[in-house]
């Protein structure tokens, strides 16, 4: 895979007033977005599958989080050292690692032995792990002081909303696999409600960031008319919000077919991925100097 940034591009970025972040979205950085997407969807699916008593959903949740672990390993520069991530006192990444470490064995244990003390222990571990996985991602971004667009308490709430939505969306896609006893129509309506909430939260987040500081304003500009705009308008807004909300609104009048519900789920999942991608892509570092013309620097 291509490196996140070539030396020439790195040097060009260093000379600009508004330096774009590339490490968490380009080259191998895409794997981080994939990992974050899968872990939040998996954690959300676990919670809703438990609530609805939908056992295939629990398996799907385990698979999604396991795949997210692999994606994270692919992203890391030194994946073989992953076990060193235990510094939970200050690091949200370490907390996420602990969450995943609780979830994976716990979920596997619960699926293998649903009854008895081991099953209960697995259930408890997995549920605590899922809660951590829902919460940690937004906080990883929010802890990034160098990128004002992310350094906001609103982002963890937005990402948690997307995780809940992702969980419901995967369930809608998976219900045709054996969802007898689950009220698919009700799940679709909850998904509609969460989709509207996500849209409101996204609008609120962008509104807040537009009034924060120069770098955050620039990030919002990147999102709505810059290099992240195609992913934002097509993926996050059109596919991820408008389509599922319109389809879901039809469902308010009467029951929807499973195919339509699955389509709502699939478009919601795509929107979840592109929301994370676009927000990462729009990241701009704190400007070090006032804006101005940048004279050519000698090659270094």
């Amino acid at each position, binding site marked *: 895979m291509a*490196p*996140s*940034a*070539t*030396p*020439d*591009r*790195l*040097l060009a970025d*260093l*000379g600009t*007033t508004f*330096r774009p*972040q590339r*490490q*968490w979205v380009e*080259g191998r950085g895409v794997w981080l977005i994939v990992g974050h997407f899968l872990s939040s969807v998996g954690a959300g699916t676990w919670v809703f599958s438990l609530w609805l008593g939908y056992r295939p959903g629990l398996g799907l949740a385990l698979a999604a989080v396991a795949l997210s672990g692999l994606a994270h390993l692919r*992203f*890391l*520069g*030194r*994946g073989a*050292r*992953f076990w*060193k*991530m*235990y*510094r939970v006192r*200050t*690091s*949200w*990444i*370490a907390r996420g*690692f602990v969450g995943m470490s609780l979830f994976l064995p716990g979920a596997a244990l619960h699926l293998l032995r649903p009854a008895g003390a081991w099953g209960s222990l697995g259930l408890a571990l997995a549920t605590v792990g899922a809660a951590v996985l829902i919460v940690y991602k937004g906080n*990883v*971004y929010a*802890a*990034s*002081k*160098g*990128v004002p667009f*992310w350094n906001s308490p609103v982002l963890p709430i937005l990402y948690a909303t997307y995780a809940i939505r992702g969980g419901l969306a995967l369930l809608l896609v998976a219900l045709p696999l054996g969802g007898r006893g689950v009220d698919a129509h009700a799940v679709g309506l909850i998904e509609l409600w969460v989709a509207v909430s996500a849209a409101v939260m996204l609008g609120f987040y962008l509104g807040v960031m537009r009034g924060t500081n120069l770098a955050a304003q620039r990030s919002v500009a990147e999102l709505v008319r810059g290099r992240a705009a195609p992913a934002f308008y097509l993926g996050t807004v059109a596919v991820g919000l408008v389509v599922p909300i319109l389809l879901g609104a039809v469902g308010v009048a009467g029951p929807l077919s499973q195919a339509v519900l699955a389509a709502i789920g699939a478009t919601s999942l795509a929107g979840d991925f592109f929301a994370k991608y676009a927000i990462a892509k729009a*990241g701009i*570092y*704190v400007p*070090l*100097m*006032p*804006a*101005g*013309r*940048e*004279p050519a*620097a*000698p090659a*270094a």
Partner: protein
Amino acid sequence: MVIDLKRCVGCYGCQLSCKAEHGTPPGVLFARVVKREIGTFPNTQLVHLPMLCFHCASAPCVEVCPTGASHYREGGVVDVTTDDCVGCRACMQACPYGARYFNETQTGYFPGQGLTPYEQRKYAAQNVGIVMKCNFCLDRVQAGLEPACVANCAARARTFGDLDDPLSEVSQLVRLRGGEQLQPELGTHPSVYYLPPA
């Protein structure tokens, strides 16, 4: 460290001497000079700002590191333990000053011609897949020398010393000349001070 913006002529000497000392790959600049032409003609001004890791007392990069690879060393130097870094790059996102670099590939300065003997020797001491940064030339300092960027500054714009010692030259410069940290509002408490250009 104290950097006198009145003395700095923006010659890139610090950048090049750092390169020579550490032999970092292309695109990695532990020390660099940021330049801007601000204003509109005829009221324009060339501003240059020598940059390096500020070795913050409240370093956000240390806070977010999941393994403890980024840590404070004796004297407040922020360093990376290469054997502990997993290459998650959270520190790069946390650093508001762009002082950290991901060593993704060890390409040389002469593409297609392999590495020079100098690059081979320097790159052998650097790990791929981890984050690199300035460590105030700890090896030189422990040997009783000044950091390379300080020793090689042609304008003698840089002064290195102990900011905790009120009688040190750096402390006195900060006190007497009104030294300022870059973006103090971020609350990172950098250990590098700039003396005003005028």
